[in-house]
């Protein structure tokens, strides 16, 4: 998309959503843990994601204690750490990706301690220089905005917040206040594996968020199939798929957890299926 050229940081995210709005469809966000199952294979997957139809990448910064993640993402994080991944390595991968892709928003997702250990100012600087556009730091609620959120926003790095069903209308303005890029709505009710996407619930949740913000709302809902991705993309500004992707990676590994010839192609094939679903789910022209 030529209108995204020259953009970086939160403006690259804004440009992407504007372009997708013009296309009349929602975004497909794909989560992978950086360096899962190893640096080379992880980089090959990463570089292949836009071609497979990912509109946006949530790139996991592996951490030993991912206290808000389920077993599949915990394991992907551990695989990456075991293969030697570090925060420096994550940024190196982003830099390598960015050399060949200027349009796809790159959101780093993870926990605060590795960033704190790296040094907040140095991290923001290096992340922007590497081509990172936004951050999702799970254990930094609005109450701790001074730590990273405010300095990141001041430098043009997006700070994407998670909203949940327990985030009530009283709390929502505080959660949305210093959010930039988009809002990530996650269900905590654990509906992974259900056949039907509860589009009515998602629609309601998205409507509620939209009453409080003009930002795009993306939804992660335990999406495992192209049909579900399409369903979510129809009622929100984007669908984010993580668990099912890292499970695909895991299923492709050999007995000792090493990549096989199938790892990259299986993963990208799975993403391609999701993308076909999302691209087939064009919405009626926007109201506005």
């Amino acid at each position, binding site marked *: 998309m030529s209108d995204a050229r020259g953009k970086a940081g939160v403006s690259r995210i804004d440009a992407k959503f504007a372009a997708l709005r013009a296309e009349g469809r929602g975004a497909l966000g794909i989560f992978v843990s950086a360096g899962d199952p190893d640096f080379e294979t992880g980089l090959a997957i990463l570089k292949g994601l836009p071609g497979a139809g990912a509109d946006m990448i949530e790139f996991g910064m592996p951490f*030993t*204690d991912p206290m*808000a993640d389920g077993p599949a993402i915990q394991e992907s994080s*551990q695989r990456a750490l075991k293969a030697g991944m570090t925060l420096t390595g994550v940024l190196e991968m982003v830099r390598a990706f960015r050399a060949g892709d200027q349009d796809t928003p790159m959101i780093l997702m993870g926990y605060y301690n590795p960033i704190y250990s790296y040094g907040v100012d140095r991290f923001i600087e290096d992340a922007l220089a590497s081509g990172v556009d936004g951050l999702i730091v*799970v254990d930094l609620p609005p109450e*701790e905005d001074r730590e990273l959120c405010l300095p990141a926003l001041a430098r043009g790095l997006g700070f994407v917040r998670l909203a949940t069903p*327990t985030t009530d209308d009283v709390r929502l303005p505080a959660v949305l206040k210093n959010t930039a890029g988009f809002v990530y709505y996650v269900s905590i009710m654990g509906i992974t594996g259900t056949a039907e996407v509860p589009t009515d619930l998602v629609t309601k949740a998205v409507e509620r968020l939209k009453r409080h913000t003009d930002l795009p709302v993306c939804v992660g809902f335990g999406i495992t199939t192209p049909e579900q991705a399409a369903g979510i993309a129809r009622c929100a500004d984007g669908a984010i798929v993580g668990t099912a992707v890292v499970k695909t990676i895991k299923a492709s590994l050999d007995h000792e957890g090493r990549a096989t010839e199938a790892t990259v192609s299986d993963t990208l094939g799975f993403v391609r299926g999701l993308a076909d679903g999302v691209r087939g789910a064009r919405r009626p022209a926007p109201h506005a």
Partner: protein
Amino acid sequence: MAATAQPNSLRAGPDADGHFGIFGGRYVAETLMPLILSVEKAYEEAKADPEFQRQIAYYHTHYIGRPSPLYFAERLTEHFGGAKLYFKRDELNHTGAHKINNVMGQALLAKRMGKTRIIAETGAGQHGVATATACALFGMECEVFMGAEDVERQKPNVDRMRLLGAKVHPVTSGSGTLKDAMNEALRYWVSKAETHFYIIGTVAGPHPYPAMVRDFQSIIGIEVKQQMMAAEGRLPDTLVACIGGGSNAMGLFHPFLDDTDVEIIGVEAGGLGLNSGKHAASLNGGRPGVLHGNRTYLLQDDDGQITEAHSISAGLDYPGIGPEHSWLNDIGRVKYVAANDEDALRAFALCTRKEGIIPALEPSHALAHVGTFIGDRPKDQIVVMNLCGRGDKDMDAVMPKLEKMGLL
């Protein structure tokens, strides 16, 4: 809980956002924030309610068996040949450790909030047993998360929990120890937010837990003050307690923080030695970081990944420490040292033979450190050590080691 803190008091923390200096805070996922805030609100109300305080006092007296004695350890004092050594006998509490002080407070709070299902994490199993006990008493459902490795090495406590009606979830994720049990308990809590209350066992976690657990444990220090005035007519010169997360220590230390003539020493688990890399001494061998909802000293590598703690004592085997301890360390009010596995085993044997008290491995670390200095202190000085748990749970782990060391 009763005394009002002075404006420039060391006892005034945390601030409104739960910070002790740069430590503490609320570093949790958005999914947990509404829960944390509701616990904070409920606790603030309960704290100010005389009826809540009366209930706690009732269970202290009639159920836990408080006040626990302040005991002059005459034979050990003679053995060391220096200052007088007193033990605060919290190992005599119902369930065998200080953990019950905190659990009764939080269980009563849960009851007040209308929650009937309880979650807890446990390392050595003492907190799990205390929680299962309170749940049996109050007719609550209890689920305890315990690292799979700890389930193996603390079998008697696992049996006690099951006997008391609790469901024990062995945690195999991550490294399968206390920190992973806490991760798993937090994950579980998020998914059961409406119905469950999470009773954290130490002075760590997101605000308000560090302050709340400290308040419930402060009965230890409050009693010591009164008992020491009655026994000696003055405050002690030195306080010593072991530190894992640091709840027994904080309970003893906090009422004394403004008594600046009182020297305060926390003893971390030195494992195989601070230079071995195999220890659980977050203050002596770690650096500040963020884990489990608070900023505090953590064992971590150069990349900010949390590393494994090691201690012979499962109760001290945690890569972090309560945030208020981190603050007290940095301002220099409390001195934090370490005692290693072998020193703790020797102290375990010594206490048993000299006083007829089998201590838990945790306070054996405190006694090991006491042994390094008390002999050099004048005979008119007084040292109080928190004997925070009894050693029955440690028999299986200790016996072969004592045999090998020729201490039987």
